[in-house]
Protein backbone atom coordinates (compact mmCIF):
# COMPACT_ATOMS: atom_id res chain seq x y z
CA UNK A 1 0.00 0.00 0.00
CA UNK A 2 2.67 2.44 1.08
CA UNK A 3 4.78 1.59 -1.93
CA UNK A 4 1.80 1.89 -4.27
CA UNK A 5 1.19 5.37 -2.94
CA UNK A 6 4.80 6.35 -3.45
CA UNK A 7 4.85 5.32 -7.10
CA UNK A 8 1.47 6.94 -7.72
CA UNK A 9 2.93 10.17 -6.36
CA UNK A 10 5.98 9.79 -8.61
CA UNK A 11 3.70 9.25 -11.60
CA UNK A 12 1.61 12.29 -10.66
CA UNK A 13 4.82 14.28 -10.43
CA UNK A 14 5.85 13.14 -13.91
CA UNK A 15 2.46 14.18 -15.22
CA UNK A 16 2.64 17.61 -13.61
CA UNK A 17 6.17 18.31 -14.77
CA UNK A 18 5.18 17.99 -18.39
CA UNK A 19 1.88 19.78 -17.79
CA UNK A 20 3.69 23.00 -16.86
CA UNK A 21 4.86 23.62 -20.41
CA UNK A 22 1.59 24.83 -21.87
CA UNK A 23 2.89 26.76 -24.84
CA UNK A 24 5.28 23.95 -25.74
CA UNK A 25 2.42 21.47 -25.58
CA UNK A 26 0.26 23.62 -27.83
CA UNK A 27 3.16 23.95 -30.26
CA UNK A 28 3.60 20.17 -30.21
CA UNK A 29 -0.07 19.62 -30.96
CA UNK A 30 0.23 21.93 -33.93
CA UNK A 31 3.33 20.20 -35.26
CA UNK A 32 1.86 16.71 -34.84
CA UNK A 33 -1.24 17.86 -36.69
CA UNK A 34 0.79 19.25 -39.58
CA UNK A 35 2.83 16.07 -39.88
CA UNK A 36 -0.37 14.06 -39.68
CA UNK A 37 -1.77 16.06 -42.57
CA UNK A 38 1.27 15.46 -44.75
CA UNK A 39 1.35 11.75 -43.97
CA UNK A 40 -2.33 11.24 -44.46
CA UNK A 41 -2.16 12.51 -48.05
CA UNK A 42 0.83 10.34 -48.90
CA UNK A 43 -0.98 7.31 -47.45
CA UNK A 44 -4.12 8.17 -49.40
CA UNK A 45 -2.07 8.38 -52.58
CA UNK A 46 -0.63 4.98 -51.78
CA UNK A 47 -3.98 3.41 -51.03
CA UNK A 48 -5.40 4.99 -54.21
CA UNK A 49 -3.04 2.80 -56.17
CA UNK A 50 -3.37 -0.28 -53.93
CA UNK A 51 -6.81 -0.02 -52.25
CA UNK A 52 -6.33 -2.95 -49.86
CA UNK A 53 -2.67 -2.65 -49.12
CA UNK A 54 -1.69 -4.51 -45.97
CA UNK A 55 -5.32 -5.49 -45.45
CA UNK A 56 -6.33 -1.90 -44.57
CA UNK A 57 -8.91 0.07 -46.46
CA UNK A 58 -8.54 3.83 -46.98
CA UNK A 59 -10.35 4.83 -43.79
CA UNK A 60 -8.26 2.39 -41.78
CA UNK A 61 -5.05 3.76 -43.27
CA UNK A 62 -6.12 7.30 -42.36
CA UNK A 63 -6.96 6.20 -38.82
CA UNK A 64 -3.55 4.60 -38.58
CA UNK A 65 -1.82 7.89 -39.44
CA UNK A 66 -3.62 9.90 -36.78
CA UNK A 67 -3.13 7.18 -34.21
CA UNK A 68 0.58 7.32 -34.98
CA UNK A 69 0.67 11.07 -34.35
CA UNK A 70 -1.22 10.56 -31.10
CA UNK A 71 1.17 7.89 -29.86
CA UNK A 72 4.45 9.35 -31.13
CA UNK A 73 5.14 11.47 -28.09
CA UNK A 74 2.97 9.42 -25.74
CA UNK A 75 5.20 6.40 -26.21
CA UNK A 76 8.31 8.48 -26.94
CA UNK A 77 8.76 6.32 -30.03
CA UNK A 78 11.68 8.37 -31.33
CA UNK A 79 13.01 9.01 -27.82
CA UNK A 80 12.50 11.97 -25.56
CA UNK A 81 10.96 10.37 -22.48
CA UNK A 82 12.36 10.20 -18.98
CA UNK A 83 15.38 8.26 -20.23
CA UNK A 84 17.07 11.52 -21.19
CA UNK A 85 17.04 12.65 -17.59
CA UNK A 86 18.02 9.22 -16.29
CA UNK A 87 21.04 9.15 -18.61
CA UNK A 88 22.05 12.60 -17.49
CA UNK A 89 21.90 11.45 -13.87
CA UNK A 90 24.04 8.45 -14.67
CA UNK A 91 26.53 10.62 -16.52
CA UNK A 92 26.84 13.15 -13.72
CA UNK A 93 26.88 10.51 -11.01
CA UNK A 94 23.69 11.77 -9.37
CA UNK A 95 22.36 8.27 -9.90
CA UNK A 96 24.18 7.22 -6.73
CA UNK A 97 21.67 9.24 -4.76
CA UNK A 98 18.79 7.44 -6.46
CA UNK A 99 20.30 4.09 -5.66
CA UNK A 100 20.29 4.80 -1.97
CA UNK A 101 16.66 5.84 -2.03
CA UNK A 102 14.33 3.37 -0.34
CA UNK A 103 12.56 2.89 -3.65
CA UNK A 104 13.25 0.64 -6.59
CA UNK A 105 15.12 2.42 -9.38
CA UNK A 106 13.29 0.75 -12.23
CA UNK A 107 9.83 1.14 -10.72
CA UNK A 108 10.56 4.75 -9.80
CA UNK A 109 11.45 5.71 -13.36
CA UNK A 110 8.65 3.56 -14.78
CA UNK A 111 6.17 5.48 -12.65
CA UNK A 112 7.65 8.81 -13.74
CA UNK A 113 7.48 7.75 -17.39
CA UNK A 114 3.90 6.54 -17.12
CA UNK A 115 2.99 9.93 -15.66
CA UNK A 116 4.74 11.61 -18.57
CA UNK A 117 3.04 9.34 -21.10
CA UNK A 118 -0.38 10.02 -19.61
CA UNK A 119 0.14 13.72 -19.96
CA UNK A 120 1.52 13.46 -23.48
CA UNK A 121 -1.46 11.33 -24.49
CA UNK A 122 -4.04 13.75 -23.09
CA UNK A 123 -2.17 16.96 -23.82
CA UNK A 124 -0.56 16.18 -27.14
CA UNK A 125 -2.15 13.04 -28.51
CA UNK A 126 -5.89 13.54 -28.26
CA UNK A 127 -6.19 16.79 -30.21
CA UNK A 128 -4.44 15.69 -33.44
CA UNK A 129 -6.42 12.45 -33.29
CA UNK A 130 -9.73 14.33 -32.94
CA UNK A 131 -8.67 16.67 -35.73
CA UNK A 132 -8.06 13.69 -37.99
CA UNK A 133 -11.33 12.04 -37.02
CA UNK A 134 -13.19 15.27 -37.71
CA UNK A 135 -11.74 16.17 -41.10
CA UNK A 136 -10.91 12.80 -42.64
CA UNK A 137 -12.83 9.59 -43.18
CA UNK A 138 -11.71 7.35 -40.31
CA UNK A 139 -12.64 3.85 -39.24
CA UNK A 140 -13.35 3.93 -35.53
CA UNK A 141 -15.07 1.16 -33.59
CA UNK A 142 -18.54 1.78 -32.21
CA UNK A 143 -18.24 -1.06 -29.76
CA UNK A 144 -17.07 0.08 -26.27
CA UNK A 145 -15.39 -3.27 -25.66
CA UNK A 146 -13.02 -2.65 -28.58
CA UNK A 147 -12.23 0.80 -27.20
CA UNK A 148 -11.51 -0.69 -23.78
CA UNK A 149 -9.31 -3.34 -25.36
CA UNK A 150 -7.52 -0.57 -27.27
CA UNK A 151 -6.83 1.40 -24.08
CA UNK A 152 -5.40 -1.80 -22.64
CA UNK A 153 -2.99 -2.19 -25.55
CA UNK A 154 -1.85 1.42 -25.17
CA UNK A 155 -1.12 0.83 -21.49
CA UNK A 156 0.84 -2.32 -22.33
CA UNK A 157 2.64 -0.37 -25.02
CA UNK A 158 3.71 2.12 -22.35
CA UNK A 159 5.36 -0.73 -20.46
CA UNK A 160 7.22 -2.03 -23.52
CA UNK A 161 8.23 1.44 -24.56
CA UNK A 162 9.62 2.24 -21.12
CA UNK A 163 11.37 -1.12 -20.87
CA UNK A 164 13.19 -0.43 -24.15
CA UNK A 165 14.23 3.09 -23.22
CA UNK A 166 15.30 2.01 -19.73
CA UNK A 167 17.78 -0.34 -21.38
CA UNK A 168 19.04 2.51 -23.54
CA UNK A 169 19.49 4.70 -20.48
CA UNK A 170 21.35 2.03 -18.52
CA UNK A 171 23.87 1.75 -21.34
CA UNK A 172 25.21 5.05 -20.03
CA UNK A 173 26.77 3.09 -17.14
CA UNK A 174 29.13 1.43 -19.62
CA UNK A 175 29.39 3.91 -22.47
CA UNK A 176 31.09 7.25 -22.00
CA UNK A 177 28.94 8.94 -24.59
CA UNK A 178 25.37 7.72 -24.88
CA UNK A 179 24.60 9.70 -28.03
CA UNK A 180 25.13 6.79 -30.40
CA UNK A 181 22.92 4.48 -28.37
CA UNK A 182 20.15 7.07 -28.22
CA UNK A 183 20.36 7.55 -31.95
CA UNK A 184 20.19 3.86 -32.73
CA UNK A 185 17.24 3.44 -30.39
CA UNK A 186 15.51 6.33 -32.06
CA UNK A 187 16.07 4.91 -35.54
CA UNK A 188 14.88 1.48 -34.46
CA UNK A 189 11.85 3.00 -32.76
CA UNK A 190 10.73 4.94 -35.80
CA UNK A 191 11.46 2.19 -38.31
CA UNK A 192 10.31 -0.89 -36.44
CA UNK A 193 7.24 0.51 -34.68
CA UNK A 194 5.41 1.25 -37.90
CA UNK A 195 5.83 5.00 -37.63
CA UNK A 196 7.06 5.19 -41.23
CA UNK A 197 4.51 2.82 -42.70
CA UNK A 198 2.24 0.16 -41.18
CA UNK A 199 4.32 -2.95 -40.59
CA UNK A 200 1.84 -5.08 -42.53
CA UNK A 201 2.84 -3.08 -45.63
CA UNK A 202 6.52 -3.99 -45.23
CA UNK A 203 7.54 -6.43 -47.94
CA UNK A 204 8.38 -10.11 -47.47
CA UNK A 205 10.79 -11.33 -44.85
CA UNK A 206 11.50 -7.81 -43.63
CA UNK A 207 7.84 -7.47 -42.73
CA UNK A 208 7.81 -10.80 -40.96
CA UNK A 209 10.82 -9.88 -38.85
CA UNK A 210 9.68 -6.40 -37.79
CA UNK A 211 6.27 -7.69 -36.84
CA UNK A 212 7.70 -9.93 -34.10
CA UNK A 213 10.15 -7.38 -32.69
CA UNK A 214 9.16 -5.56 -29.48
CA UNK A 215 8.69 -2.22 -31.27
CA UNK A 216 5.63 -3.56 -33.06
CA UNK A 217 3.93 -3.46 -29.64
CA UNK A 218 4.09 0.31 -29.73
CA UNK A 219 2.02 1.39 -32.71
CA UNK A 220 1.12 -1.62 -34.83
CA UNK A 221 -0.43 -3.58 -31.96
CA UNK A 222 -2.74 -0.85 -30.62
CA UNK A 223 -3.67 0.11 -34.18
CA UNK A 224 -4.64 -3.43 -35.12
CA UNK A 225 -6.80 -3.77 -32.01
CA UNK A 226 -8.46 -0.40 -32.61
CA UNK A 227 -9.10 -1.25 -36.25
CA UNK A 228 -10.52 -4.62 -35.25
CA UNK A 229 -7.86 -6.55 -37.11
CA UNK A 230 -6.27 -8.34 -34.18
CA UNK A 231 -7.47 -10.38 -31.28
CA UNK A 232 -6.96 -8.30 -28.11
CA UNK A 233 -5.94 -11.26 -25.95
CA UNK A 234 -3.29 -12.43 -28.36
CA UNK A 235 -2.03 -8.87 -28.63
CA UNK A 236 -1.81 -8.51 -24.85
CA UNK A 237 0.07 -11.76 -24.63
CA UNK A 238 2.56 -10.55 -27.25
CA UNK A 239 3.02 -7.12 -25.64
CA UNK A 240 3.26 -8.37 -22.07
CA UNK A 241 5.69 -11.13 -23.01
CA UNK A 242 8.00 -8.49 -24.44
CA UNK A 243 7.40 -6.18 -21.47
CA UNK A 244 8.31 -8.90 -18.98
CA UNK A 245 11.36 -10.01 -20.93
CA UNK A 246 12.69 -6.49 -21.40
CA UNK A 247 11.93 -5.35 -17.87
CA UNK A 248 13.68 -8.45 -16.54
CA UNK A 249 16.70 -7.69 -18.70
CA UNK A 250 16.61 -4.14 -17.41
CA UNK A 251 16.56 -5.43 -13.86
CA UNK A 252 19.55 -7.64 -14.53
CA UNK A 253 21.51 -4.73 -16.01
CA UNK A 254 20.43 -2.53 -13.13
CA UNK A 255 21.82 -5.06 -10.65
CA UNK A 256 25.13 -5.20 -12.52
CA UNK A 257 25.25 -1.42 -12.76
CA UNK A 258 24.47 -0.97 -9.09
CA UNK A 259 27.30 -3.27 -8.16
CA UNK A 260 29.54 -1.20 -10.40
CA UNK A 261 28.53 2.05 -8.74
CA UNK A 262 28.98 0.58 -5.27
CA UNK A 263 32.41 -0.74 -6.20
CA UNK A 264 33.42 2.67 -7.54
CA UNK A 265 32.20 4.18 -4.32
CA UNK A 266 29.34 6.14 -5.87
Amino acid at each position, binding site marked *: MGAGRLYAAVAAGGFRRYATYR*AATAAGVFTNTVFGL*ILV*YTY*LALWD*VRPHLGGYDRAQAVTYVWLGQALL*STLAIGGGGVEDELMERIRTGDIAVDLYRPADLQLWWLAADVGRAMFQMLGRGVVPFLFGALFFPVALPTDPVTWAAFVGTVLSAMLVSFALRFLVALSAFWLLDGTGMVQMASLAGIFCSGMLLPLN*VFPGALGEVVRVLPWSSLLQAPADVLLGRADPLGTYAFQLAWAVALLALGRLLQTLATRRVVVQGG
Partner: protein
Amino acid sequence: MGGSRDRTDGGDSRTDGCGAAGSGSGGSRPVDGRGTGGNRPAGGPGSGGSRVADGLRAYRLIAGMWLRSTMAYRASFIMTTIGNFAVTALDFVAILLMFSRVDALGGYTLPEIAFLYGLSGVSFGLADLAIGSMDRLGRRVRDGTLDTLLVRPAPVLAQIAADRFALRRLGRVTQGALVLGYAFATLDVHWTALKVLLVPVMVVSGWAIFCAVFVAGAAFQFAAQDASEVQNAFTYGGTTLLQYPPTVFAKELVRGVTFVLPLAFVNWLPATYVLGRPYPLGLPRWTAFASPLVAAVCCALAGLAWRAGLRSYRSTGS
Protein backbone atom coordinates in the same frame (compact mmCIF):
# COMPACT_ATOMS: atom_id res chain seq x y z
CA MET B 1 7.87 10.26 -38.74
CA GLY B 2 6.43 13.19 -36.97
CA GLY B 3 6.79 16.34 -35.04
CA SER B 4 9.56 15.32 -32.77
CA ARG B 5 11.88 14.34 -35.53
CA ASP B 6 14.46 16.96 -34.73
CA ARG B 7 15.02 15.31 -31.38
CA THR B 8 16.79 12.54 -33.14
CA ASP B 9 18.98 15.00 -34.91
CA GLY B 10 21.77 14.03 -32.58
CA GLY B 11 21.53 17.05 -30.35
CA ASP B 12 24.46 17.38 -28.03
CA SER B 13 23.60 17.65 -24.42
CA ARG B 14 26.58 19.68 -23.38
CA THR B 15 26.22 22.87 -21.47
CA ASP B 16 26.01 25.93 -23.59
CA GLY B 17 28.93 28.22 -23.37
CA CYS B 18 26.76 30.93 -24.85
CA GLY B 19 29.60 32.18 -26.88
CA ALA B 20 28.96 35.43 -28.49
CA ALA B 21 30.87 37.93 -30.38
CA GLY B 22 30.66 40.66 -32.83
CA SER B 23 32.55 42.60 -35.36
CA GLY B 24 33.78 46.08 -34.89
CA SER B 25 31.98 49.25 -35.75
CA GLY B 26 34.76 50.57 -37.86
CA GLY B 27 38.43 50.58 -38.53
CA SER B 28 40.91 52.14 -36.22
CA ARG B 29 40.45 53.02 -32.60
CA PRO B 30 42.26 55.92 -31.07
CA VAL B 31 45.04 54.63 -28.90
CA ASP B 32 43.98 56.95 -26.16
CA GLY B 33 40.90 55.42 -24.67
CA ARG B 34 40.03 58.59 -22.86
CA GLY B 35 38.76 60.60 -25.78
CA THR B 36 35.28 62.04 -25.63
CA GLY B 37 32.32 60.51 -27.36
CA GLY B 38 32.60 61.66 -30.91
CA ASN B 39 36.16 60.93 -31.91
CA ARG B 40 35.76 57.40 -33.18
CA PRO B 41 34.97 56.65 -36.76
CA ALA B 42 31.36 55.71 -37.00
CA GLY B 43 31.15 52.73 -39.24
CA GLY B 44 29.00 49.63 -39.25
CA PRO B 45 25.50 50.47 -38.20
CA GLY B 46 25.07 53.21 -40.75
CA SER B 47 25.27 51.87 -44.24
CA GLY B 48 23.50 48.70 -45.30
CA GLY B 49 26.43 47.17 -47.17
CA SER B 50 28.88 47.32 -44.32
CA ARG B 51 26.23 45.95 -41.99
CA VAL B 52 25.91 42.87 -44.14
CA ALA B 53 29.69 42.56 -44.29
CA ASP B 54 29.87 42.95 -40.50
CA GLY B 55 27.21 40.34 -40.10
CA LEU B 56 28.93 37.83 -42.34
CA ARG B 57 32.21 38.42 -40.60
CA ALA B 58 30.63 37.88 -37.17
CA TYR B 59 28.87 34.78 -38.47
CA ARG B 60 32.13 33.33 -39.75
CA LEU B 61 33.96 33.98 -36.51
CA ILE B 62 31.26 32.53 -34.26
CA ALA B 63 30.57 29.54 -36.47
CA GLY B 64 34.30 28.89 -36.38
CA MET B 65 34.27 28.84 -32.61
CA TRP B 66 31.42 26.33 -32.57
CA LEU B 67 33.26 24.21 -35.06
CA ARG B 68 36.26 24.09 -32.78
CA SER B 69 34.04 23.33 -29.80
CA THR B 70 32.57 20.40 -31.73
CA MET B 71 36.02 19.06 -32.47
CA ALA B 72 36.66 18.85 -28.74
CA TYR B 73 34.34 15.84 -28.90
CA ARG B 74 35.43 14.23 -32.12
CA ALA B 75 33.90 10.80 -31.58
CA SER B 76 30.60 12.32 -30.66
CA PHE B 77 30.76 14.49 -33.76
CA ILE B 78 31.28 11.53 -36.07
CA MET B 79 28.49 9.62 -34.40
CA THR B 80 26.00 12.47 -34.56
CA THR B 81 26.83 13.12 -38.20
CA ILE B 82 26.11 9.50 -39.04
CA GLY B 83 22.97 9.71 -36.94
CA ASN B 84 21.85 12.83 -38.76
CA PHE B 85 22.41 11.04 -42.05
CA ALA B 86 20.55 7.92 -40.95
CA VAL B 87 17.58 9.67 -39.41
CA THR B 88 16.97 11.79 -42.46
CA ALA B 89 17.47 8.75 -44.67
CA LEU B 90 14.48 7.12 -42.97
CA ASP B 91 12.22 9.43 -44.97
CA PHE B 92 13.58 7.97 -48.17
CA VAL B 93 13.33 4.48 -46.76
CA ALA B 94 9.61 5.11 -46.28
CA ILE B 95 9.37 6.08 -49.94
CA LEU B 96 11.30 2.97 -50.99
CA LEU B 97 8.97 0.83 -48.89
CA MET B 98 6.00 2.40 -50.62
CA PHE B 99 7.54 1.71 -54.00
CA SER B 100 8.08 -1.90 -53.01
CA ARG B 101 4.30 -2.13 -53.34
CA VAL B 102 3.47 0.38 -56.10
CA ASP B 103 5.05 1.71 -59.30
CA ALA B 104 3.87 5.28 -59.01
CA LEU B 105 2.67 7.63 -56.31
CA GLY B 106 0.39 10.50 -57.31
CA GLY B 107 1.34 9.65 -60.87
CA TYR B 108 5.07 10.17 -60.23
CA THR B 109 7.68 7.44 -60.63
CA LEU B 110 10.40 6.69 -58.11
CA PRO B 111 13.15 8.62 -59.98
CA GLU B 112 10.85 11.61 -60.24
CA ILE B 113 10.04 11.53 -56.56
CA ALA B 114 13.73 11.05 -55.82
CA PHE B 115 14.36 14.22 -57.81
CA LEU B 116 11.87 16.18 -55.67
CA TYR B 117 13.20 14.53 -52.53
CA GLY B 118 16.81 15.30 -53.32
CA LEU B 119 16.13 18.95 -54.12
CA SER B 120 14.08 19.40 -50.96
CA GLY B 121 16.70 17.59 -48.88
CA VAL B 122 19.68 19.52 -50.21
CA SER B 123 18.15 22.99 -50.07
CA PHE B 124 16.61 22.44 -46.65
CA GLY B 125 19.73 20.67 -45.41
CA LEU B 126 21.90 23.62 -46.41
CA ALA B 127 19.55 26.06 -44.66
CA ASP B 128 19.52 23.83 -41.59
CA LEU B 129 23.30 23.66 -41.67
CA ALA B 130 23.62 27.43 -42.00
CA ILE B 131 21.12 28.70 -39.46
CA GLY B 132 19.32 25.64 -38.12
CA SER B 133 19.88 26.52 -34.49
CA MET B 134 17.86 29.69 -34.70
CA ASP B 135 15.02 27.83 -33.07
CA ARG B 136 16.97 28.13 -29.83
CA LEU B 137 16.20 31.83 -29.71
CA GLY B 138 13.23 31.32 -27.40
CA ARG B 139 15.46 29.56 -24.91
CA ARG B 140 17.97 32.38 -25.06
CA VAL B 141 15.22 34.89 -24.39
CA ARG B 142 13.97 32.83 -21.46
CA ASP B 143 17.32 32.34 -19.77
CA GLY B 144 18.54 35.84 -20.55
CA THR B 145 21.61 34.88 -22.59
CA LEU B 146 20.29 36.89 -25.55
CA ASP B 147 21.41 39.96 -23.61
CA THR B 148 25.02 38.83 -23.81
CA LEU B 149 24.73 39.04 -27.61
CA LEU B 150 23.16 42.49 -27.54
CA VAL B 151 26.21 44.06 -25.92
CA ARG B 152 28.50 42.91 -28.74
CA PRO B 153 29.36 45.15 -31.68
CA ALA B 154 27.71 42.93 -34.28
CA PRO B 155 24.24 42.39 -35.72
CA VAL B 156 22.28 40.11 -33.40
CA LEU B 157 20.81 38.21 -36.34
CA ALA B 158 24.28 37.12 -37.43
CA GLN B 159 25.19 36.07 -33.92
CA ILE B 160 21.99 34.08 -33.47
CA ALA B 161 22.30 32.54 -36.93
CA ALA B 162 25.76 31.20 -36.10
CA ASP B 163 24.68 29.97 -32.70
CA ARG B 164 25.53 26.30 -32.20
CA PHE B 165 26.72 25.94 -35.76
CA ALA B 166 26.77 22.18 -36.24
CA LEU B 167 28.64 20.55 -39.04
CA ARG B 168 26.92 17.26 -38.29
CA ARG B 169 23.99 18.64 -40.27
CA LEU B 170 26.01 17.85 -43.36
CA GLY B 171 24.53 14.39 -42.79
CA ARG B 172 21.20 15.59 -44.11
CA VAL B 173 22.78 17.46 -47.01
CA THR B 174 24.80 14.39 -47.98
CA GLN B 175 21.77 12.17 -47.84
CA GLY B 176 19.76 14.56 -49.99
CA ALA B 177 22.63 14.85 -52.46
CA LEU B 178 22.91 11.07 -52.78
CA VAL B 179 19.23 10.76 -53.54
CA LEU B 180 19.51 13.60 -56.02
CA GLY B 181 22.41 11.78 -57.66
CA TYR B 182 20.29 8.65 -57.89
CA ALA B 183 17.55 10.74 -59.51
CA PHE B 184 19.94 12.15 -62.12
CA ALA B 185 21.17 8.67 -62.93
CA THR B 186 17.71 7.18 -63.37
CA LEU B 187 15.53 10.04 -64.60
CA ASP B 188 14.21 9.80 -68.13
CA VAL B 189 14.45 13.50 -68.96
CA HIS B 190 15.67 15.29 -72.04
CA TRP B 191 18.13 17.68 -70.41
CA THR B 192 18.28 21.09 -72.06
CA ALA B 193 20.64 23.86 -70.98
CA LEU B 194 17.75 25.65 -69.30
CA LYS B 195 16.76 22.57 -67.32
CA VAL B 196 20.33 21.99 -66.19
CA LEU B 197 20.63 25.60 -65.16
CA LEU B 198 17.40 25.43 -63.22
CA VAL B 199 18.81 22.82 -60.82
CA PRO B 200 21.35 25.06 -59.04
CA VAL B 201 18.84 27.92 -59.17
CA MET B 202 16.38 25.69 -57.34
CA VAL B 203 18.90 24.71 -54.70
CA VAL B 204 19.96 28.29 -53.98
CA SER B 205 16.41 29.71 -54.03
CA GLY B 206 15.15 26.82 -51.92
CA TRP B 207 17.96 27.40 -49.47
CA ALA B 208 17.01 31.08 -49.22
CA ILE B 209 13.31 30.34 -48.80
CA PHE B 210 14.00 27.88 -45.99
CA CYS B 211 16.41 30.36 -44.39
CA ALA B 212 13.61 32.92 -44.45
CA VAL B 213 11.33 30.42 -42.73
CA PHE B 214 13.96 29.84 -40.02
CA VAL B 215 14.39 33.59 -39.47
CA ALA B 216 10.66 34.27 -39.41
CA GLY B 217 10.20 31.36 -37.00
CA ALA B 218 12.86 32.77 -34.71
CA ALA B 219 11.22 36.19 -34.90
CA PHE B 220 7.98 34.56 -33.82
CA GLN B 221 9.77 33.22 -30.76
CA PHE B 222 10.27 36.73 -29.48
CA ALA B 223 6.51 36.65 -28.99
CA ALA B 224 6.13 33.00 -27.98
CA GLN B 225 9.27 31.67 -26.37
CA ASP B 226 8.12 28.11 -25.79
CA ALA B 227 6.81 27.63 -29.27
CA SER B 228 9.97 26.48 -31.03
CA GLU B 229 8.15 23.36 -32.12
CA VAL B 230 5.69 25.37 -34.19
CA GLN B 231 8.67 26.24 -36.31
CA ASN B 232 9.39 22.55 -36.83
CA ALA B 233 6.02 22.17 -38.51
CA PHE B 234 7.14 24.59 -41.22
CA THR B 235 10.81 23.64 -41.49
CA TYR B 236 10.98 19.88 -40.99
CA GLY B 237 7.32 19.60 -41.99
CA GLY B 238 7.96 21.73 -45.05
CA THR B 239 10.83 19.63 -46.31
CA THR B 240 8.84 16.43 -45.72
CA LEU B 241 5.93 17.85 -47.69
CA LEU B 242 8.16 18.75 -50.63
CA GLN B 243 9.56 15.23 -50.80
CA TYR B 244 6.27 14.12 -52.34
CA PRO B 245 4.71 15.39 -55.58
CA PRO B 246 2.04 18.10 -55.38
CA THR B 247 -0.47 15.75 -56.98
CA VAL B 248 -0.61 13.80 -53.74
CA PHE B 249 -1.99 16.67 -51.65
CA ALA B 250 -5.34 18.40 -51.43
CA LYS B 251 -5.76 21.52 -53.56
CA GLU B 252 -6.16 23.79 -50.50
CA LEU B 253 -2.89 22.56 -49.06
CA VAL B 254 -1.09 23.13 -52.37
CA ARG B 255 -2.64 26.60 -52.58
CA GLY B 256 -1.47 27.33 -49.06
CA VAL B 257 2.14 26.40 -49.77
CA THR B 258 2.07 28.30 -53.07
CA PHE B 259 0.46 31.60 -52.16
CA VAL B 260 0.76 31.86 -48.36
CA LEU B 261 3.99 30.15 -47.42
CA PRO B 262 5.53 29.76 -50.88
CA LEU B 263 7.38 26.49 -50.29
CA ALA B 264 6.14 25.30 -53.68
CA PHE B 265 8.83 27.47 -55.26
CA VAL B 266 11.58 25.47 -53.54
CA ASN B 267 11.15 22.51 -55.88
CA TRP B 268 7.58 21.75 -56.95
CA LEU B 269 7.14 24.43 -59.60
CA PRO B 270 10.63 24.44 -61.12
CA ALA B 271 10.75 20.63 -61.04
CA THR B 272 7.40 20.51 -62.80
CA TYR B 273 9.11 22.25 -65.73
CA VAL B 274 12.15 19.99 -65.63
CA LEU B 275 10.02 16.84 -65.49
CA GLY B 276 7.56 18.12 -68.11
CA ARG B 277 4.58 17.60 -65.85
CA PRO B 278 1.31 19.53 -65.74
CA TYR B 279 1.54 22.55 -63.49
CA PRO B 280 -0.22 22.33 -60.14
CA LEU B 281 -3.27 24.60 -59.79
CA GLY B 282 -3.01 25.33 -63.50
CA LEU B 283 -0.32 27.91 -62.81
CA PRO B 284 1.35 29.64 -65.79
CA ARG B 285 4.64 28.31 -67.08
CA TRP B 286 6.77 31.23 -65.97
CA THR B 287 6.14 30.41 -62.31
CA ALA B 288 8.76 27.69 -62.72
CA PHE B 289 11.35 30.44 -63.05
CA ALA B 290 10.03 32.73 -60.32
CA SER B 291 11.83 31.00 -57.45
CA PRO B 292 14.70 33.53 -57.08
CA LEU B 293 12.23 36.41 -56.96
CA VAL B 294 10.00 34.61 -54.46
CA ALA B 295 13.06 33.81 -52.35
CA ALA B 296 14.13 37.47 -52.33
CA VAL B 297 10.67 38.58 -51.22
CA CYS B 298 10.61 35.91 -48.50
CA CYS B 299 13.98 37.01 -47.19
CA ALA B 300 12.90 40.66 -47.13
CA LEU B 301 9.71 39.81 -45.24
CA ALA B 302 11.60 37.59 -42.80
CA GLY B 303 14.07 40.43 -42.24
CA LEU B 304 11.23 42.78 -41.41
CA ALA B 305 9.71 40.22 -39.05
CA TRP B 306 13.07 39.83 -37.35
CA ARG B 307 13.45 43.57 -36.89
CA ALA B 308 9.98 43.84 -35.46
CA GLY B 309 10.68 40.95 -33.10
CA LEU B 310 13.97 42.37 -31.92
CA ARG B 311 12.44 45.81 -31.48
CA SER B 312 9.68 44.37 -29.35
CA TYR B 313 12.25 42.48 -27.27
CA ARG B 314 14.24 45.64 -26.71
CA SER B 315 11.16 47.50 -25.60
CA THR B 316 9.69 44.78 -23.42
CA GLY B 317 12.71 42.82 -22.30
CA SER B 318 10.93 39.57 -22.91
